[in-house]
Protein backbone atom coordinates (compact mmCIF):
# COMPACT_ATOMS: atom_id res chain seq x y z
CA UNK A 1 0.00 0.00 0.00
CA UNK A 2 2.93 2.35 0.65
CA UNK A 3 3.51 4.73 -2.29
CA UNK A 4 6.93 4.62 -3.90
CA UNK A 5 8.92 7.83 -4.19
CA UNK A 6 11.82 8.60 -6.49
CA UNK A 7 14.52 9.68 -6.41
CA UNK A 8 15.60 8.92 -2.84
CA UNK A 9 17.80 12.01 -2.72
CA UNK A 10 18.54 15.11 -4.79
CA UNK A 11 21.31 17.68 -4.53
CA UNK A 12 20.74 21.02 -6.24
CA UNK A 13 22.42 24.36 -6.69
CA UNK A 14 20.23 27.32 -5.86
CA UNK A 15 18.08 28.17 -8.87
CA UNK A 16 18.02 24.66 -10.34
CA UNK A 17 14.88 22.60 -10.84
CA UNK A 18 13.86 19.22 -9.49
CA UNK A 19 11.07 16.72 -9.94
CA UNK A 20 9.98 14.26 -7.27
CA UNK A 21 7.76 11.35 -8.24
CA UNK A 22 5.23 9.36 -6.25
CA UNK A 23 3.54 6.23 -7.57
CA UNK A 24 1.07 3.77 -6.16
CA UNK A 25 -0.02 0.25 -6.98
CA UNK A 26 -3.57 1.16 -6.00
CA UNK A 27 -6.03 3.65 -7.44
CA UNK A 28 -5.46 7.10 -6.04
CA UNK A 29 -8.18 9.31 -4.64
CA UNK A 30 -5.91 12.09 -3.53
CA UNK A 31 -2.20 12.78 -3.13
CA UNK A 32 -0.89 15.01 -0.34
CA UNK A 33 2.62 16.47 -0.43
CA UNK A 34 4.55 17.51 2.68
CA UNK A 35 8.01 18.85 3.41
CA UNK A 36 9.80 18.10 6.65
CA UNK A 37 12.87 19.91 7.90
CA UNK A 38 15.00 18.17 10.48
CA UNK A 39 13.48 18.38 13.94
CA UNK A 40 10.29 20.01 12.72
CA UNK A 41 6.76 18.95 11.89
CA UNK A 42 5.98 17.84 8.34
CA UNK A 43 4.40 20.87 6.69
CA UNK A 44 1.56 20.54 4.20
CA UNK A 45 2.44 21.80 0.72
CA UNK A 46 -0.18 20.66 -1.70
CA UNK A 47 -3.07 18.33 -2.31
CA UNK A 48 -4.11 16.88 -5.64
CA UNK A 49 -7.55 15.40 -6.00
CA UNK A 50 -8.94 12.87 -8.41
CA UNK A 51 -10.53 14.86 -11.18
CA UNK A 52 -7.73 17.38 -11.35
CA UNK A 53 -8.47 19.94 -8.66
CA UNK A 54 -5.35 21.22 -7.03
CA UNK A 55 -4.84 23.19 -3.86
CA UNK A 56 -1.66 24.29 -2.22
CA UNK A 57 1.58 26.12 -2.41
CA UNK A 58 2.01 28.98 -4.89
CA UNK A 59 5.70 28.48 -5.66
CA UNK A 60 5.66 24.72 -6.08
CA UNK A 61 3.50 22.86 -8.56
CA UNK A 62 2.40 19.29 -8.98
CA UNK A 63 0.64 16.99 -11.37
CA UNK A 64 -1.60 14.01 -10.85
CA UNK A 65 -1.94 11.25 -13.45
CA UNK A 66 -4.87 9.09 -12.37
CA UNK A 67 -4.36 6.49 -15.11
CA UNK A 68 -0.74 5.94 -14.20
CA UNK A 69 -1.54 6.23 -10.49
CA UNK A 70 1.24 8.69 -9.93
CA UNK A 71 1.94 12.25 -8.94
CA UNK A 72 4.94 14.49 -9.51
CA UNK A 73 6.07 17.50 -7.50
CA UNK A 74 7.89 20.22 -9.43
CA UNK A 75 10.31 22.52 -7.67
CA UNK A 76 11.45 25.29 -9.97
CA UNK A 77 14.17 27.87 -9.37
CA UNK A 78 14.96 26.18 -6.07
CA UNK A 79 15.78 28.23 -3.01
CA UNK A 80 17.86 27.30 0.02
CA UNK A 81 14.63 27.10 2.01
CA UNK A 82 13.45 24.20 -0.16
CA UNK A 83 15.89 21.85 1.54
CA UNK A 84 14.28 19.07 3.54
CA UNK A 85 12.62 15.72 3.06
CA UNK A 86 9.55 15.59 0.83
CA UNK A 87 6.85 13.03 1.47
CA UNK A 88 3.87 12.08 -0.58
CA UNK A 89 0.83 10.67 1.20
CA UNK A 90 -1.99 8.77 -0.45
CA UNK A 91 -5.47 8.49 1.00
CA UNK A 92 -6.47 4.93 1.82
CA UNK A 93 -10.06 4.15 2.70
CA UNK A 94 -10.72 2.05 5.76
CA UNK A 95 -14.19 1.31 7.03
CA UNK A 96 -15.76 4.47 5.69
CA UNK A 97 -12.98 6.70 6.91
CA UNK A 98 -9.56 7.28 5.46
CA UNK A 99 -5.97 7.78 6.46
CA UNK A 100 -2.79 8.88 4.73
CA UNK A 101 -0.08 6.38 3.94
CA UNK A 102 3.30 7.91 3.22
CA UNK A 103 6.21 7.07 0.99
CA UNK A 104 9.78 6.78 2.28
CA UNK A 105 10.56 10.38 1.40
CA UNK A 106 12.93 12.21 -0.94
CA UNK A 107 15.78 14.13 0.65
CA UNK A 108 16.47 17.42 -1.09
CA UNK A 109 19.54 19.53 -0.39
CA UNK A 110 19.87 22.95 -2.01
CA UNK A 111 23.31 24.57 -1.90
CA UNK A 112 24.35 28.15 -2.70
Amino acid at each position, binding site marked *: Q*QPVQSPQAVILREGEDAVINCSSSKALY*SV*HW*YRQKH*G*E*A*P*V*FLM*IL*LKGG*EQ*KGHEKISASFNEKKQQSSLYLTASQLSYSGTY*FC*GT*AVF*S*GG*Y*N*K*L*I*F*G*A*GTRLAVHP
Partner: protein
Amino acid sequence: EAGVTQFPSHSVIEKGQTVTLRCDPISGHDNLYWYRRVMGKEIKFLLHFVKESKQDESGMPNNRFLAERTGGTYSTLKVQPAELEDSGVYFCASSRGLTSGNTIYFGEGSWLTVV
Protein backbone atom coordinates in the same frame (compact mmCIF):
# COMPACT_ATOMS: atom_id res chain seq x y z
CA GLU B 1 -5.71 28.89 15.74
CA ALA B 2 -3.37 26.68 17.73
CA GLY B 3 -1.76 23.80 15.88
CA VAL B 4 -1.28 20.21 16.98
CA THR B 5 0.77 20.14 20.15
CA GLN B 6 2.73 17.21 21.49
CA PHE B 7 4.43 16.52 24.78
CA PRO B 8 7.18 15.71 25.61
CA SER B 9 9.27 16.91 22.71
CA HIS B 10 12.12 14.59 23.71
CA SER B 11 12.31 11.59 25.98
CA VAL B 12 15.22 9.26 26.81
CA ILE B 13 14.28 6.14 28.74
CA GLU B 14 15.85 2.82 29.54
CA LYS B 15 14.70 -0.41 28.02
CA GLY B 16 11.85 -1.81 30.07
CA GLN B 17 10.57 1.54 31.28
CA THR B 18 7.26 3.16 30.40
CA VAL B 19 6.68 6.34 28.44
CA THR B 20 3.44 8.19 27.76
CA LEU B 21 3.20 10.65 24.91
CA ARG B 22 0.44 13.21 24.73
CA CYS B 23 -1.19 14.93 21.77
CA ASP B 24 -3.61 17.83 21.68
CA PRO B 25 -5.21 18.11 18.25
CA ILE B 26 -6.42 21.24 16.55
CA SER B 27 -9.72 22.31 18.08
CA GLY B 28 -12.69 20.91 16.20
CA HIS B 29 -10.75 18.11 14.51
CA ASP B 30 -12.52 14.83 15.13
CA ASN B 31 -9.83 12.79 13.38
CA LEU B 32 -6.58 12.15 15.22
CA TYR B 33 -3.71 10.06 13.88
CA TRP B 34 -0.52 8.69 15.34
CA TYR B 35 2.48 8.07 13.11
CA ARG B 36 6.07 7.05 13.74
CA ARG B 37 9.21 7.83 11.79
CA VAL B 38 12.38 5.90 12.34
CA MET B 39 15.55 7.58 11.03
CA GLY B 40 15.59 7.58 7.25
CA LYS B 41 12.37 5.63 6.89
CA GLU B 42 8.82 6.49 5.94
CA ILE B 43 6.28 8.18 8.19
CA LYS B 44 4.52 5.00 9.26
CA PHE B 45 0.85 4.95 10.20
CA LEU B 46 0.04 3.61 13.66
CA LEU B 47 -3.51 4.50 14.60
CA HIS B 48 -6.55 6.57 13.71
CA PHE B 49 -9.18 7.90 16.11
CA VAL B 50 -12.51 9.36 15.12
CA LYS B 51 -13.59 11.28 18.18
CA GLU B 52 -13.01 8.84 21.05
CA SER B 53 -13.27 5.68 18.94
CA LYS B 54 -10.36 3.77 17.47
CA GLN B 55 -11.19 3.62 13.78
CA ASP B 56 -8.07 1.84 12.63
CA GLU B 57 -5.22 0.51 14.73
CA SER B 58 -3.72 -1.73 12.08
CA GLY B 59 -0.32 -0.03 12.30
CA MET B 60 0.25 -0.55 16.02
CA PRO B 61 3.40 -2.70 16.30
CA ASN B 62 2.30 -4.90 19.20
CA ASN B 63 0.43 -4.93 22.50
CA ARG B 64 3.14 -2.93 24.22
CA PHE B 65 1.56 0.11 22.61
CA LEU B 66 -1.70 1.52 23.97
CA ALA B 67 -3.46 4.59 22.64
CA GLU B 68 -6.41 6.35 24.19
CA ARG B 69 -8.41 9.43 23.41
CA THR B 70 -10.43 10.49 26.39
CA GLY B 71 -13.69 12.24 25.57
CA GLY B 72 -12.59 12.73 21.99
CA THR B 73 -10.17 15.48 22.93
CA TYR B 74 -6.48 14.87 23.63
CA SER B 75 -4.84 11.51 23.04
CA THR B 76 -2.11 9.55 24.76
CA LEU B 77 0.18 6.86 23.43
CA LYS B 78 1.78 4.66 26.05
CA VAL B 79 4.67 2.32 25.40
CA GLN B 80 5.10 -0.29 28.12
CA PRO B 81 7.65 -1.81 28.42
CA ALA B 82 9.78 0.08 25.95
CA GLU B 83 12.23 -1.79 23.71
CA LEU B 84 15.22 -0.47 21.76
CA GLU B 85 13.38 -0.73 18.43
CA ASP B 86 10.70 1.65 19.69
CA SER B 87 13.07 4.58 19.28
CA GLY B 88 11.97 7.14 16.72
CA VAL B 89 9.86 10.23 16.30
CA TYR B 90 6.19 9.85 17.13
CA PHE B 91 4.01 12.29 15.25
CA CYS B 92 0.45 13.14 16.01
CA ALA B 93 -1.76 14.66 13.33
CA SER B 94 -5.34 15.83 13.18
CA SER B 95 -7.91 16.53 10.52
CA ARG B 96 -11.52 17.40 9.86
CA GLY B 97 -11.52 14.36 7.58
CA LEU B 98 -9.86 13.49 4.28
CA THR B 99 -12.66 14.51 1.99
CA SER B 100 -13.41 17.68 0.06
CA GLY B 101 -9.77 18.54 -0.25
CA ASN B 102 -8.97 18.48 3.46
CA THR B 103 -5.64 17.25 4.69
CA ILE B 104 -3.97 16.34 7.96
CA TYR B 105 -1.83 18.63 10.09
CA PHE B 106 1.13 17.36 12.04
CA GLY B 107 2.55 18.24 15.41
CA GLU B 108 6.29 18.67 15.86
CA GLY B 109 6.67 15.15 17.16
CA SER B 110 7.90 13.46 20.29
CA TRP B 111 11.44 12.12 19.92
CA LEU B 112 11.80 8.88 21.84
CA THR B 113 15.17 7.29 22.51
CA VAL B 114 15.26 3.93 24.27
CA VAL B 115 18.69 3.00 25.63
